């Protein structure tokens, strides 16, 4: 029996996610898998992602994993990371492709020619450690307000339903960097690369028992 399935659809650095989960849950069995049956049987599912959204959607379908991910996102503790957050929405401006539509809203690109308050150019991708202003969801337990997490992305989510928003960050305008609904929690940053704060979030996810 696999406790935690990390969905492998051929994109991104899944090893990092696996290593970080092993670190916070040394006794759990963690499987990086592209087998829909293992995903269906796992008690928790992590849906990571790196790269371009059109490629991620295509690879997910090529491996026949769409239904397994949709089912997991509806019925067991589920964590989306980076593109794994973006894919949950209805549509992405990256490649103008539809997403999985688990959450309503869209994925849009940071504007070009962004400037900070001092007039310095803000680069895209938004890359590095930014402060996360979080809500009161149980997964934030033990994580300081405005703790820094590691981001690397050029697109961000715009949920239509404001009640799903669980955190925001600023670049320079506020953008949503975490959402939650029922058994689902998803983040734009990389908890597996965010040192102590990231490991704490993953640990909280491992211990999470949503009703």
């Amino acid at each position: 029996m696999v406790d935690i399935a990390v969905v492998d659809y051929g994109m991104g650095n899944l090893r990092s996610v696996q290593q970080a989960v092993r670190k916070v849950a040394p006794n759990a069995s963690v499987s990086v898998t592209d087998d829909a049956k293992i995903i269906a049987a796992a008690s928790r599912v992590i849906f990571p992602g790196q790269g371009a959204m059109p490629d991620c959607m295509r690879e997910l379908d090529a491996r026949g994993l769409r239904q397994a991910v949709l089912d997991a996102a509806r019925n067991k503790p589920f964590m989306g990371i980076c593109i794994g957050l973006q894919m949950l929405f209805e549509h992405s401006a990256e490649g103008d492709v539809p997403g999985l539509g688990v959450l309503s809203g869209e994925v849009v690109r940071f504007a070009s020619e962004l400037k900070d308050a001092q007039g310095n150019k803000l680069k895209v991708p938004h890359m590095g450690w930014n402060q996360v202003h979080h809500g009161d969801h149980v997964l934030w337990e033990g994580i300081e307000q405005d703790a820094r997490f590691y981001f690397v992305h050029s697109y961000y989510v715009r949920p239509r339903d404001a009640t799903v928003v669980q955190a925001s960050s600023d670049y320079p305008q506020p953008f949503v960097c975490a959402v939650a609904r029922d058994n689902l929690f998803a983040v734009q940053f990389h908890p597996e690369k965010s040192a102590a704060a990231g490991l704490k979030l993953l640990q909280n996810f491992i211990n999470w028992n949503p009703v």
Partner: protein
Amino acid sequence: MLAKRIIPCLDVTAGRVVKGVSFVELRDAGDPVEIARRYDDQGADELTFLDITASSDDRGIIFRIIEQVAEQVFIPLTVGGGVREVQDVRNLLNAGADKVSINTSAVVNPQLVADASARYGSQCIVVAIDAKQVAPGKWEVFTHGGRKATGLDAVEWAKKMQTLGAGEILLTSMDKDGQKSGFDLALTRAVTDALEIPVIASGGVGNLQHLADGVKQGGADAVLAASIFHFGEYTVQQAKHFMAGQGIEVRS
């Protein structure tokens, strides 16, 4: 607000971290895994490993090092040196690297940058540029560890790499590397102003003011240094404290 990053750089050969002056005269700095853990404890924002092994026989060593570091250190890891094909990128990512740095091969075969970023995403493709000043306000790209002139203008080359899909530029001044007299700020400024993607300034750090200057005057998004950290002159914490004191946003 987004923090400016401090990135200790580990030049690795034969399983050891070494540091040279202007790309020669190597000095031993210790065990890479141990050093990586130390910098993580000190609050490093990222780590860069450059495999400077001359012989391809020793290539396997860097994979084992990255595997060990990735099991213990949960911050982004960039690995460069000897990356020639998309398969090399894949192997390094599988070993635990988050980003792969491409230098000489980007010049020899620019399509590699396009192919690797199309396959794995531009977020994990760093193009390293070694540049040497050839005239006032003009810098040329060098390859093969700084031994070979290319005739390419560094600023134009950086723009081309951005267009091909690089997610970040690691910019090293060969004139400054190992000299401890500070970054080439004019070079850093010229490249960062020309690009939309982040630029890491590298080469020449001798004290903490140099790091702050790289951000404030050079406009760098991240600063990379090796010897000031390896030989115990400063910790990463001290560097951050100093930069914060100069009004630079850092991750404490």
